[in-house]
Each structure stands twice: as C-alpha cells, then as structure tokens.
C-alpha cells in the first residue's frame, strides 16, 4: 500500500486538474464569450449570471490542485512554478482581475465602469486559460531542469510548440465547453445562437486538445492510453452529434468526457514522470523521487477521502439549486447607488 501512495496521489492530482478544467473550463469560456459572443449589455449579464453563483467554487479546484501538489509532490511544485515563473505570474494577475471584475462589474451603474470590467473578464479568462494550458502541456513535454530541478536558461525557455499547443487546447476547449454550457443554461435567442456557433466550432475546438493527447501518447504511452485516446475522439464526435440533434445535456456531458479522456491519456502517458527534464532523463522528476513521505501521503489520503466526496456533494447541490435557465427576462434592471 505504502509504495502505491505516490501513484494514488498522482492520479488524484490528475483528477483535480480534470475537475478544474471541466468546471472552471466553462466559466473561463463564458468569460471570453463576454466579448466574443454577447452583443448587448443584457446578454453579457445573462452570460455572467449563468456562472455567477458557481465560478468561485470552480476556481478552488485550481487552488486545491496546486496545494495538493505542494503537499504530495513538493519537488514537482517547486520546479514547475519557479521554472514557469512569468507565465504563472501572468495567470495570477489574470485571475485576480477576473475575480474582482465578476464581483465589481454590477456594483456601479456606468457604461465605462462595465466596459472596463468586461475587458478584465475577457483578458483575464483568456490569459488564465492559455497560461494554465501551456503549463500543463510543459509539465508533460518537459522543461530544461538541472539536477536540483532548477531552470537552466532564461525566463522564456518555456516558449515552445508544446506550450502553444497546450494553450490553444485549453482556450478552444473552454470556448466550446462554455457554448455547450450556455445551451444548457440559457433560453431564447442566445441559446439558439450558442448552439449554432457550437456546432460549427466544436470540430475545430477539440483538435489541439486531441493533438496534445496524441503527442504525449506517442512519446510515452501504452496500449491503454491509446484506447483512452480513442475514447476521447469518440466522445468529441458524440458531443458534436448530440448538439447537432439538440440533445443539449448529452452534448455537454460528452464534451466533458472528451476532456477527461484526453487528460487521462495525457497524464497516463506521462506517468511515472511528473516533470521531465529536457537536459537529461536522470534529472526527471517522477512520482517516486518528487513525492512526500509515505506518512504525509497517508495523512493526506485520509483527508482527501473525506474531503473530495464532500466537495462533490455540496458543489453538485449548488448546481441543483441554481439549475434554472437564465434569460434576458430574469435579469433585473441595473440600479445606481447614490449618496443619501
């Protein structure tokens, strides 16, 4: 059992990233669609309010993925974050602006105020999606690390094809996922437009994600990861077909399944390496040499066994509470706050 703990934690962290991209995926996408899709202020408010009650809870999946990496694989955490210093700083700035924009946008009744926060939501969502996509791609394709796990080279050595592929994969997935979410969560003209756009966009939007999974699979995969990759492709196709035949719920679920299968293929192919060094295989960080002690992993396993099902239960309940579709009719008028 003890020797299995690092593997279990590798799986759990993969699950946390999957949960993050599945949930925050649609609110990052909705954030980008605020500029790319919504036409009027009321439409923007419809979009915003489909994710309003849940985006903050979704974002905690990221915080937990990162915190769990520190607890379970401190060397992975240390090398990944310090090596990708600039991209992560940009992601953080993006998430800061985005979070504040969600909350503050409706707090003043002025067009200029709203326009500024809309821009913050758009840029924040885009930068966060792209940065996290690049970081995840690089943790599977490798970074120039020395024997201590520190970066060799300048602040931009991470700018590679893999980084762009990962960034494109997550940005495009988020856009498609958000459209599928809007089809589920809105009604009327917005919903129809979202569906039409999704049917056109989806075949293109999943390509970088599947391509990323395929490259990682070809580099180090097994028969199993190949099968999972096939599942991912099939799920993406099923999603498109479901949307085309107006089975909105299935379309959303199959797209989520395509993401989960792609990530399973990616993490499964990379295993047991968590962060390869492009300089020498001897410097690779693996589940064994980067992990915490069995004692800590055991303690954290108990915590996760209690905590993760609880999170799933109450977050699931939240989605149930706010299951009603949001339409232009459900948006109250903006109100001004004026001094007494």
């Amino acid at each position: 059992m003890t020797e299995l703990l690092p593997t279990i934690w590798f799986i759990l962290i993969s699950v946390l990233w999957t949960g993050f991209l599945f949930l925050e995926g649609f609110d990052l996408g909705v954030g980008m669609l605020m500029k790319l899709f919504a036409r009027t202020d009321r439409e923007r408010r419809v979009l915003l309010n489909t994710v309003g009650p849940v985006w903050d809870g979704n974002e905690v999946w990221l915080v937990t993925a990162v915190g769990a990496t520190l607890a379970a694989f401190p060397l992975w955490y240390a090398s990944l974050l310090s090596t990708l210093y600039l991209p992560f700083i940009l992601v953080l700035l993006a998430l800061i602006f985005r979070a504040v924009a969600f909350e503050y946008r409706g707090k003043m009744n002025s067009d200029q105020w709203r326009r500024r926060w809309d821009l913050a939501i758009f840029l924040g969502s885009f930068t966060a999606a792209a940065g996290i996509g690049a970081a995840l791609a690089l943790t599977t394709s490798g970074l120039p690390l020395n024997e201590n796990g520190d970066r060799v080279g300048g602040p931009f050595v991470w700018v590679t094809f893999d980084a762009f592929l990962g960034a494109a994969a997550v940005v495009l997935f988020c856009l498609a996922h958000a459209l599928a979410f809007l089809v589920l969560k809105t009604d009327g003209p917005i919903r129809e437009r979202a569906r039409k756009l999704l049917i056109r966009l989806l075949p293109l939007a999943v390509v970088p994600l599947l391509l990323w999974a395929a490259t990682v699979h070809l580099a180090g995969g097994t028969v199993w990861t190949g099968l999972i990759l096939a599942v991912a492709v099939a799920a993406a196709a099923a999603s498109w077909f479901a949307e085309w035949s107006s089975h909105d719920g299935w379309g959303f679920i199959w797209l989520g399944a395509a993401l989960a299968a792609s990530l399973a293929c990616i993490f499964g192919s990379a295993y047991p390496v968590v962060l390869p060094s492009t300089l020498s295989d001897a410097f690779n960080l693996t589940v064994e040499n980067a992990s915490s002690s069995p004692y800590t992993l055991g303690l954290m396993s108990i915590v996760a066994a209690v905590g993760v099902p609880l999170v799933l239960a109450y977050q699931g309940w939240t989605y149930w509470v706010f299951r009603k579709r949001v339409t232009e009719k459900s948006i109250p008028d903006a109100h001004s706050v004026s001094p007494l």
Partner: protein
Amino acid sequence: MEALEIARWQFGITTVYHFLMVPLTIGLGLVVAVMQTLWYRTGKDHYLRMTKFWGKLFLINFIMGVATGLVQEFQFGLAWSEYSRFVGDVFGAPLAMEALLAFFVESTFLGLWIFGWQRLPKVLHLGALWAAVVASVFSAYFIIVANSWMQHPVGVELVDGRARMVDAWAVFTNNTALVAFTHTIFGALAVAGGFLLGIAWYHLWKRRRDGLDTVDGDGKVVVGTDTFGSRGVIDHQVWLRSARIGAVVALISFAGTAVSGDLQAKLMFEQQPMKMAAAEAACHDGTGFSVLSVGNLGSQDCDDIVAVFEVPGLLSFLANGDFTTEVKGVNTLLPEYKEQYGQTLPDDPMYGERAGMSIDYLPVMEVTYWGFRIMIGFGALAAFAALVALWILRKGTVPESRWLMRLAVFGILAPFGANSAGWIFTEMGRQPFVVAPNPDPSGIDGVFMFTAAAVSPGVSLAELVFSLVALTLVYAVLLVVEVKLLFTYVRGGVASAMPELAARHDDDSSSRGKDDDDVLSFAY
C-alpha cells in the same frame, strides 16, 4: 538589490496586502452571520437591513481577499522553491487541507448565500452563510498552523536534508499555532468592531445633520417620526445597533488579543528569544519594558541604544509571569546564536553566491521595536475609543461634531494597523531564518532554514523585479477601486444594498415586478 531582497519585498507586500482583507472578511463575516441569525429568529426589519448592508460591504471586501489569496498558494513555489523543497512534506499538508476542507466550503457556500436570497429556504440560506463564515475561521487555523511551523518547527525529523513530518498531531496542535490562531481571530474581530462603529457613527451623525434625529433637553435622541422612505425609525435602529455591536465587539476582541498576546509573548520568550529581545531593542539582560528607547535602532550596534523610560519588571512579566526574571538581551544572545548556528552561511551550493557570508542574527530593530509598539498602541487606542463611544451612545445618538465623526471613521484604520504591524513584527523578527530554530526543548532544534537559502535559484532578478512591480501596481489600483466602492456603498446607506427600499420611495419605479418568479432577486 539582489534577488533575495526583491523576493522578500514581494512576499511582504503581497502578504501584508492580503491580510488587509482577511481580518475584515473573518470578523465581519461572523458579525453578519449573527445579524442574519437575529433576523431569522426575530423577523425584525432592522436585522434584515443590517444583514444586507453589512453583507454588501463584506462581499466587496471578500472578493479582494480571495483574489489576493490565490497568489499565496503559488508563491512558495514561484520565488521560494528551495523553501518548498525543504518544508513541502510538512508545510504543504495544512495548505492543501485549507484548500480542500475550508476554502472550498467558503467559496461554494458564499455563492449560495449571494445568489440564494429567496431561492433557498430561509434556514438553508442562513446555514450557507454560517458554513462560509465557519470555513473562513478554519481557513485561518490551517494557515496559522503552517506559519507557526516556521516559527516553531515540531513533529518532523530531517531526512536527506529535508524536513519530514513524523507527527501530524504535534504539527496541528503546535502551541505556537493555538495561541497565534486565537490572537488572529480576536484581531480580526477588532477590525470588524472598528469598521461597524466608524461607519454606523457616520450615519448616526448624518441623520442628525440632515435633521432626521434631534436630541431633547437630556441629550436623549428623538427619532424623527415622519416617513423618510428608507430612512425612518428602522434606519436609526440599524445604525444605533450596529454602532453598539461594533463597540462591544471591539472591547471583547481587545481583551481577547491582550490575553492571547500575553501567552504568545511567553512562548516567544522561550522559542525565539532573539525576537523578544529585538522587540524590546534590549541590548542588555533586564526586567524592564521600554516605553521609549532612543539611539540609532538601525545601526545594528546595540550599544547605541538607550532606554529613556522603562516600566520596571514589566518585561519579565510579559515573558515569564513574574517581575524579576532577567530577559536575555541581544548582547547575551548573539554569541549564543553564533555558537549554535554558525558565524557564516555554510559552504553549500544551496546558498549560491551567499555561501560563506557572515550571518547577522539581529533582526531589523527599528521594525521589531516599533512594530511591537504600534500593534499594542493601535489596539489599545481602538479599544479605548470603543469604550468612550459606548458611553456616548447611551443616549441613542452621537454628537453633531464633525471632527468627532471623522475621528470615528479614521479610527477604522487603527485595528488594521495593529494587525499589519503585528505580522510585520512576527515575520521580520524571525529573520535571518525562514524556519526558526528553537532553543526550547519542545521545538526541534536541528530543523531550521536561513531565508538566504530559501529563494528560487533558477529565477532571475529581472523576473522578480517585473513581478514585484506588476503585483504592487495592480494591488495599488485595486485598493483604490475597493476603497472607492466601499465609500460609495457606505454613503448610499442601507438603500445601496436594498434597492427595493429606494424603489419604494419613488413610487413610479420602473423595476419589473419583484414578485415575478423569473426575475433573479440578485444578479451580477
């Protein structure tokens, strides 16, 4: 400047800034939850209005705490990778638990609370707020456990040069953590108390200035009986009760910080004697608490410093509970530290260019000495003001004096200042260590780390300068925005959080039917 200094400034700025929002979130959250509970149990209108108004300010502040808190989860890996490698096994656990067990609850249930008005049954809606607020307290506990391990490492052994957790119970019941947690929660409540009192005072004052309230011959309030829309009798109740609650909370929390702070000082005297000596700018062993010391505190030459006025025996009392124990001064401690932990940084690659440099064991005494006094001074000042305010409020309103009102509003800053000063003192007083060695038997003496060894070796100076400048600028801009929003909402009174009150006032309100089930009761 070198990377180490920039990284330290960055950590200091981002963390002190984050901790401007955190105590208000924790303290005000608890207060708002109590208000909503009172509304739930009594159904009285003024409790609903209090919940809505203070709840709105709570949310404006909360989101800034969330946004700046994200940086905290990442920055140990970003700029302090060697630190993360050294302590990850023990330090990561409370951080991950904070995210999984506390922050998840906080974020999810607060979303339920914000959007759940009228959509959730009243009791569940109240429960959602309590869940979020209790989670924020747990959140504080986990973070304090992590921080206290840096002050007083316990429950670990060294394996291959890295700290490994062997006793989680010891880590999570670290005596340093338990008292620091208590101190922090009371510190947070002190912030909330001052916040309530200052803002409610402003509104009571404004009601008088606008001629709504007057006073009779005894100075007792006469609340206007005309209908004032949102500013009738209930409005007066809102502010009077808020002011009284604020003053009482401020007084209780001052007592709490004093008692827990005293316990902390006694632990610090055992665990980090140099920090205690530096807090006192005490060069020589002694028993007196310095009220004012002069000399060049920054000279690092301790013999320059002269205590002008001391309270005899008080330092011994703070440190040990009696009036005679000699508290070790800097001149006694320095040779002890040098002997135990070395004169120079070891010749180890982890120190980079700093290997072999001499170690300065004395924290920056201007900061520790004044940090300690500003914390106590501002805390006591706020409590004294609350006491006076409670006395003035006995007649149901506040004087018409404008400067008194300004004082009450400015007084909001005092507990914030006390919190920041306390943390700056604690963290700067730990230097030159990031993980402090503990001479007392309950700590593990061999486990410590110099701050100089903790910084990320692979990150360049340019990157650190960029992020320091970017984060500081963004934080500065957002602080201005937050304060501006808070001012706007405060000035708007209860109606700013309950637009339906204003709508009722001008009867031809265009807002679509509130009874319409399709319209969200709250929307972004």
